Each structure stands twice: as structure tokens, then as C-alpha cells.
């Protein structure tokens, strides 16, 4: 078993706590019993010592009197054999002025002695020793101790087994969670852990993990979809490119035909390279916080330049472009990126507006914020499309797939957001669209 595992730790902790607890209970039980029994004996000894006349004839009781020098003056037993013993007890009496109880063997018999010294004028005049045999008591206590020890040892194994079973039970849901987690890979991210409905931390863990999986799954799906979209966007121009080249190579052709094919391939390569540069812009938006080229620049000039481009683009389609730009508005940020974002928005406005309609480009400063408004009288965006316009590769249902790559708004939004700005779109089908970009100074 892994000694670092929580299971092992719980087993060790649990069984040692139980074993120590049982040990403490058993030993205090023993100590307590021991104390109570001796207290009883001592009580009896004191009683007898006070009434020697009355209890003098109690069998097996020993009474000895010693004088101030420790010599036996009176004894109920033959004392020759016990002189050493008495002198020891006498020494204790000399040290302790009060009554003392002590266990002392006399011959082979364990006895409980009461030592009662009598002091007169700070001088030891007499010592009384009263003793009871305590063989039976000691034997009982010993057998109590061995019984307790025996029970204690018998207890250890079940305690450890119990700890293992108990731990298993606690750990089991965790183990099953681990096992289930192991089964989840990037291939089956839609799998979820079964809810144990146990109303405990495990359930919480399961739910938290499932939530994490949900988020992961979503972003995985988004990424996969994004890659599929990129692949799809690339496939059509590549198919056109490849088909055109193969067809041209199938037989000998005139110079003009070769030239035409080359021109066609240029259109496709342009399309592919535009898509790639859009993707790079998107990637920049994704990780721009640290690479933002933060310099002050004149937004009015930038917007004006772009509005002039819009004017020319509009001219080709007979669209009237109105320009209303406040002068000398300066902001901090990445000029080329901001200009890219605005260009995307203007491009959309021109693209979706039909001939003889108007487009308005206005830039205003309101205290500490700048509002750039691009208003067109184009086809408009339906409510259901409006929620998705900032999604990568999203194209409205009406716009088919002929126009653009579907990345323009996503890029614009990303750029504006990294400049702590905001972008809002209002639109009515058939009436037109208003795009508002709000930027802080």
C-alpha cells in the first residue's frame, strides 16, 4: 500500500487514536480500581490502629511497637526474622511526621503497613506499625491487569480492520470519482461524472468537476469548430486554384490562356492570403494585452483617412458617404490596429448598402469618451443574427457566403475590447444598421 496515500494516513490515524483511547481507558480503570482498594485497606488499618485493644485479636493482623531507637518493644509476631524490615519502616517514620501507608513484604507475605509515629516535643518517642496481609488483593489486581492487557491486545486487530473498512467506505466515492475522471479524455469530453446525490463534499467535487468539463467542452467545441471553419474557408479557394491549374495543364494552350489562368490563380491566392492575415489579426487579438503598441495618435486623422477611402468605395456603388468628424481627438492605443477595426466596420457598411443610399461616419468626443458612429441604410441585421455577429466565421443568413470571410466584426470587436472600448450594434431589417464604437481617451 502506498504509505503517502490518504487511505493509509486515515487508517493509521484512526487506529492509533482508537488504540490510544482504549489504552487510556483501560489503564485509568486499573489505576482507579487499585486506588479504591488500597483506600479501603488503609481505612481499615487506621481504624484498627486507633482501637488496638478492640481489634488486637484480628487474625493475620500484625501489630508492632517500636521505641525511639527503633527497637521492638511489643510485637504480635515473632520479630527476629523481620528486624531489617522494621528498621526500614522506622526510617520512614523518622522522615515522615504523619501517618504513612506502605506495601512491604514480610517473609513471603505481601503486607500493607500503617506507620504511625508519635512525636513529643519534636522528638520521636514511639512508632506503631499495623499491617494487614494483601496477598489476595494483589493477586486480584494482577489478574485484573492481565485481563485488561489481554482484552487490549485482542482489540487491536479488529480496530485496525475496522479502520480499513471505515476508510474504504470514506475513500470509495473518491476512488470511483478518480476512476471516472480517468476515463474522460479529449475524445469523449461530453462524458460526465455520475452525481452521487450524497449531499456531501464528494457531490460538490463532482458537480464542480462537471462544471469545469462543461466549460472545457464548450471551448474545445468552439476551437474545433473554428479550425473546421478555417479549413472550410481555405478549401474552396484551394479547390478553385487546383482545378484551374490542373485543367490548364491538361493540354497545350495559348499564351493568353496561360495568362488568364495565372490571373485567376492570383485571385485565389489573394483570397487565401487575406484569410491568413485575418487569422493572424485574430490571434493578435487573443494575446494582445502584452504586445499592445500603446502610443498617442490622432484618431480624427485616422478616421478621416478611412472615411476618404469609404468615399471612393461609395462612389463606385453610387453610395453617398457623409462625414462628420471632430478635429484633434487623440487617444492612446495601437494606431494600425484601431484603423484596421474601423476599416472593417466601414467596409461592412459600404458592402451591405445598396446604390443611392447613405452612409454616415461620425466621430464625437463626449467628456472622457469618444463615440464613433457608422450608420448605413443597408439590408440590416435580423434579431437572431444580431446576437451572433461578433462570432468568428458567422455570416448572417441573408448574406449567403459570397461576402467576406466572416472574421471582420470578430477582429474589430477584439481590437476595440483590448483598447478597453466597447462596440454596439443596433439594426432593423430593411432600414439599416448603426454601429457605435465607444473608446476611452
Amino acid at each position, binding site marked *: 500500500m502506498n504509505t503517502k496515500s490518504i487511505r493509509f494516513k486515515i487508517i493509521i490515524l484512526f487506529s492509533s487514536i482508537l488504540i490510544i483511547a482504549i489504552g487510556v481507558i483501560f489503564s485509568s480503570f486499573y489505576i482507579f480500581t487499585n486506588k479504591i482498594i488500597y483506600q479501603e485497606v488503609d481505612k481499615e488499618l487506621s481504624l484498627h490502629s486507633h482501637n488496638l485493644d478492640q481489634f488486637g485479636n484480628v487474625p493475620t493482623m500484625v501489630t508492632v511497637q517500636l521505641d525511639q531507637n527503633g527497637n521492638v518493644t511489643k510485637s504480635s509476631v515473632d520479630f527476629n526474622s523481620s528486624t531489617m524490615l522494621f528498621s526500614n519502616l522506622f526510617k520512614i517514620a523518622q522522615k515522615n511526621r504523619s501517618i504513612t501507608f506502605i506495601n512491604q513484604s514480610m517473609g513471603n507475605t505481601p503486607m500493607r503497613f500503617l506507620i504511625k509515629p508519635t512525636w513529643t516535643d519534636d522528638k520521636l518517642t514511639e512508632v506503631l506499625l499495623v499491617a494487614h496481609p494483601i496477598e489476595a488483593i494483589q493477586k486480584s489486581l494482577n489478574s485484573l491487569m492481565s485481563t485488561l492487557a489481554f482484552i487490549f491486545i485482542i482489540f487491536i486487530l479488529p480496530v485496525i480492520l475496522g479502520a480499513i473498512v471505515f476508510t474504504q467506505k470514506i475513500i470509495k466515492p473518491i476512488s470511483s470519482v478518480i476512476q471516472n475522471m480517468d476515463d474522460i479524455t479529449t475524445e469523449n469530453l461530453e462524458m460526465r461524472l455520475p452525481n452521487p446525490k450524497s449531499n456531501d463534499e464528494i457531490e460538490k467535487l463532482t458537480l464542480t468537476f462537471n462544471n469545469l468539463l462543461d466549460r472545457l467542452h464548450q471551448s474545445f467545441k468552439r476551437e474545433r469548430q473554428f479550425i473546421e471553419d478555417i*479549413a*472550410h474557408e481555405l*478549401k*474552396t479557394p*484551394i*479547390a*478553385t*486554384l*487546383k*482545378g*484551374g491549374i*490542373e*485543367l490548364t495543364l*491538361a*493540354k497545350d494552350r495559348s499564351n493568353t490562356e496561360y495568362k488568364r489562368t495565372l490571373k*485567376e490563380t492570383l*485571385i*485565389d491566392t489573394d483570397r487565401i492570403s487575406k484569410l491568413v492575415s485575418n487569422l493572424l489579426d485574430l490571434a493578435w487579438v487573443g494575446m494582445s494585452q502584452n504586445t499592445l503598441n500603446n502610443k498617442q495618435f490622432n484618431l480624427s486623422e485616422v478616421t478621416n483617412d478611412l472615411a476618404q477611402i469609404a468615399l471612393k468605395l461609395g462612389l463606385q456603388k453610387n453610395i453617398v458617404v457623409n462625414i462628420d468628424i471632430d478635429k484633434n481627438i487623440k487617444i492612446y492605443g495601437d494606431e494600425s490596429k484601431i484603423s484596421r477595426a474601423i476599416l472593417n466596420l466601414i467596409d461592412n457598411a459600404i458592402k451591405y448598402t445598396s446604390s443611392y443610399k447613405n452612409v454616415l461616419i461620425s466621430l464625437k468626443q463626449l467628456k472622457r469618451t469618444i463615440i464613433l458612429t457608422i450608420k448605413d441604410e443597408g439590408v440590416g441585421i435580423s434579431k437572431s443574427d444580431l446576437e451572433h455577429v461578433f462570432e468568428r466565421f458567422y455570416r448572417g443568413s441573408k448574406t*449567403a*457566403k*459570397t461576402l467576406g470571410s466572416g472574421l471582420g466584426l470578430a477582429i474589430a470587436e477584439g481590437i476595440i475590447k483590448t483598447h478597453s472600448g466597447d462596440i454596439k450594434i443596433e439594426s432593423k431589417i430593411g432600414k439599416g444598421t448603426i454601429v457605435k464604437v465607444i473608446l476611452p481617451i
Partner: protein
Amino acid sequence: MRVLIVEDEIRLNNIIKKGFVEDGFAVDQAFDGEEGQYLAESEQYDLIVLDLMLPKIDGVTVCKNLRKKKSKTPIIILTAKSTVEDKIMGLDSGADDYITKPFSFNEFRSRVHALIRRSHQDPSPILEVDGLVLNPLSHVVTRDKKQIKLTPKEFAILELLMRNRGEVTTRTNIIEHVWDYNFDGMSNIVDVLVVTLRKKINNGYKQKLIKTVHGVGYII
């Protein structure tokens, strides 16, 4: 042979058309599902090339609608969708073949010819009648191993007659399969072409091929 290309990417559509025209096919183009379905229902095609992601009506629906109306024209799906699920959905909607972009034009061409062959129940890619051999892929016609030079239209008429050998092919049938939607020429253009075709293939041979069935059409 007459084919319909339903593909919303105008330039790709044009390239495919060019390839077919060089093969002597009559080609019609549609740029959305609705137009494609209309043409497929109202004209006689030997093959339809169908994109899946189309404006108005998507390719799978077009395919299903055509099959519902008992159209037997072979349909080849040409799409950027390349997952197994997409292929299954496309073929299960009634298409005969599925090819993904970007594709090899030569493979595409071979698949097209295979489909046409299958729909006419020709076992061999090369058509042969009494020593007259026509190879649709290489565009070579020989009689007794001598090569005969034909114009694309003559070639197309001969191919049609040979695919229907033993059966009468009507003039309308020839017009429908050899000319595209924009044709509104005189009906005797078929007769004129058959005359020159006959001259080219029978010149110097005793056995005269292509017989006229009066008032109906031609048979080989």
C-alpha cells in the same frame, strides 16, 4: 453528355464548366439550390454536380427532392464538408458519389465518366460497335484502328448513339443531351451534324453505320 453544375462559388463553377466543355459536354450552371432544383427538374441531364452549402436550398435537400420526384440522374456531391457524417448524409440523401474539396480534377473527371457509364449500364469504359471504338476519357475515335477526327459536337452525338446502341435515339433526345440550356438553334442542326458524322466514320467502309429511322431519329 449534358451536365448540370450547382455550385455557388462562381469561379469554381466556371472552372468545372470549362473542364466539362473541353470534354465535349453540354453544361448548364446554377448558383443556388433553388435554380439548381428547377433546372434539374425541367431539363434532361446525364449528371448533376451538387455542392452542399448552397444559398436558398441546401444540397442535401435538393438531392432528396430530386429523388422524391423519381429522378434517376446520377448526382455527384462536390463539397468542402469532409467528415464521415457529412458523407453518409450526402450519400443517404440519394447521391451517387461524394468528392471533397480540394479535389483532383482528373479524379473528378474519371468519377464523372464512371457514373455516366454506370447509369447507361456499360461494363467497359470504352464503347465499341462493329469495329468503331470510342474512348470517352481520351476523346479518341477509331474504326479498325484508324483514328477518326471529330468535332466536339459530332463526338458527343456519336457517344450518345453508342451508349444507346440498338435503340432509337430521337432528335429531341440528342438536342437535350448534347446542347445546353441556352441552345435555341434550328432543329435540323442534328441532321446536318449526323450527315457529316456518317461521312467521317463510314468513309471507305462497306458497312454503313448510323441508320436513320424516318420521322423519329437515329440508331447505331
